[in-house]
């Protein structure tokens, strides 16, 4: 029982990070109907931005940690907007495949530029938030788990509010629904799409900082593995759907953890993918996704 609870805590902690990254995929897909493969590399840039900012911080504190996170989120938001402006916007009216290939190219570019700029070797990540352990009976909860979960929940709620209750959120939904009609209604599509990329990239940066805080060795290829898992999580939950991404992330995190803790530990990724296939067979749009009839 103790082991079960402990694994559940471990799973929720990793899962909430997958959820944060999955949100970025889902957000961009929701508005533009394309998968931004460079997202996992923006996640990496976020971690490195946090590393450089954190080095100047000195003492670890909650305020300092948040400051580093906000700084990295701002840097990545700008990066995300630049990527959209110069790599994706010129191709917006071309076939979806061209944009997809460009996204893969962008991902490789960021990975290799990262190796050049940050160096290819793993580097230690400075402590930004203070950390200690809390023992609840036989279960141990690290403050790292609490911070990761707390930040993920807050960002998720904020995002949901933003999309559903604000003007820009309404504009995002309108653009997602029908870009041409939205433009005719006086919505500046370019601004909305730019904002979406900025928002998604800021979430990736937050994910990157939390990831680095929990696993304090970072390198320019660190985004590949969690990015892939988070992408699966987004599809599992229903890509384009915000609560779906969160649910998918948590689910994958928990399943992965339980499999890793069992005798079949090396099968953890395979089992996540098998699960994806099974769920997609019965719910092709994902757990919370809605199947929309194809427009003719």
């Amino acid at each position, binding site marked *: 029982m*103790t*082991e079960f609870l*402990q*694994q559940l805590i*471990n*799973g929720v*902690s*990793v899962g909430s990070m997958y959820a944060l990254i999955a949100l970025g995929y889902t957000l961009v897909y929701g508005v533009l109907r394309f998968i931004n493969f460079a997202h996992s590399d923006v996640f990496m840039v976020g971690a490195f931005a946090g590393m450089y900012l954190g080095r100047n911080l000195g003492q*670890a504190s909650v305020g300092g940690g948040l400051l580093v996170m906000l700084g990295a989120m701002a840097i990545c938001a700008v990066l995300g907007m630049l990527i959209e402006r110069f790599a994706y916007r010129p191709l917006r009216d071309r076939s979806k495949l061209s944009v997809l290939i460009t996204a893969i190219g962008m991902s490789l570019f960021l990975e290799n530029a990262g*190796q050049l700029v940050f*160096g*290819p*070797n*793993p580097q*230690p*990540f*400075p*402590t930004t938030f203070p*950390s200690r*352990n809390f*023992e609840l009976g036989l279960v*141990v909860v*690290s403050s*790292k788990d609490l911070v990761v979960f707390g930040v993920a929940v807050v960002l998720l709620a904020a995002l949901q509010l933003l999309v559903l209750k604000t003007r820009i959120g309404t504009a995002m939904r309108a653009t997602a629904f029908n870009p041409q009609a939205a433009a005719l209604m006086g919505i500046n599509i370019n601004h909305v799409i730019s904002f979406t990329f900025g928002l998604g990239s800021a979430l990736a940066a937050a994910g990157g900082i939390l*990831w680095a805080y*929990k*696993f*304090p*060795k970072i*390198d320019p290829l*660190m985004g*590949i*593995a*969690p990015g892939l898992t988070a992408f699966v999580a987004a599809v599992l939950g229903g890509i384009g759907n915000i609560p779906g991404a969160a649910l998918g992330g948590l689910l994958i995190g928990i399943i*992965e*953890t*339980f*499999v*890793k*803790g*069992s005798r079949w*530990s*090396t099968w953890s990724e395979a089992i996540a993918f098998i699960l994806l296939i099974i769920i997609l067979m019965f719910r092709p749009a994902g757990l919370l996704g809605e199947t929309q009839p194809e427009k003719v």
Partner: protein
Amino acid sequence: MLLAVLAAGFSGCKPSAEETAADAQIIKVGEFASLTGSEASFGQSSHDGTLLAVEDINNAGGVLGKKLQLITEDDQSKDGESATAVKKLISRDKVVAILGEVASIRSIEAAQICQQYKVPQISPSSTNPKVTQTGDYIFRVCFIDPFQGTVMAQFAAKTLKAKKVALLTDVGSTYSVGLADFFKAGFIAGGGEIVAEQKFTKDDKDFKAQLTAVKTANPDAIFIPAYYGQVTLIALQARELGITVPLFGGDGWEAPELTEGPGAAEALEGCYFSTHFSPEQDSPKIKQFVAAYQKRFGSVPDAMGALGYDSVLALVDAIKRAGSSDSDKIRDALATVKNLEGVTGITTLDTNRDAQKPAVILEIKGGKFVYKETVNP
């Protein structure tokens, strides 16, 4: 004009007289190492040791009146890259012998190429038995994992007084899987019990699931035959889960990066690992080597640096006795390397082309590696 260009082109194809003369004055030695990437510390140290040895030999007049030229390729710590690097060294640079690598999986990969082209390869510090089993052109100047596993099994039972040990293995690493098996066999033969065996893969960052399962099994110590990058994360997460028992491992732990970063030194305090060399050992040969290395690179050498140095000594000894820089003759001479004094002890290559050398156990204290004991074969 065109004629001039053509003429220049043709003359460029034939080596000029000076070039041939210069070629005759050097012996090309290839080296492949993980200079960047996840095991960069290994590659850097090994390369520094190798380079120092080549410089020492050349300053002392070279071999057979010729200078050694070291040509180094980086395999970026990636599986697959070492085969490419070695092919390049053999076919383009025409090296007479290959030195490298540290990680067993990459040494094996290169060994298949070296064996195919019949170019002798000396691995400075790959300890998995399969490396030299690839073929008769493959040698090494370090001990092998059956020995290292036994040493650590005895250490666990005697010094750590452990009866129950848990294993945490990187299934993607030949080194890790092999060392875990040899440790397990040795520990069970000594009356110990393996209470948990957990596995992970190279890209894993989250080990809490495996560690939670290990914690439930309540071991007296945890054996982690893995490379330093993963060990740091494992140690941090183990302490976060409230696991307080000592962790111990093999020579894959030895890198200054092991205790770098927040909390790493505290998490690994009082942990142990086995390796090939300690700069603190009391021997004039070692003191001289440490001083020379420090003067050249500004840091204290570790086992990978020392073995890199010794791999060059073995090669030079073979070239001298062969009286030739022909690859086949070097191979034959390497097979009979005997009582060669180096910085990691006496090298004698046995019929399996492996060396038998003492192991050194180091303890981690305050983020530093402190000499604990030497175990002779």
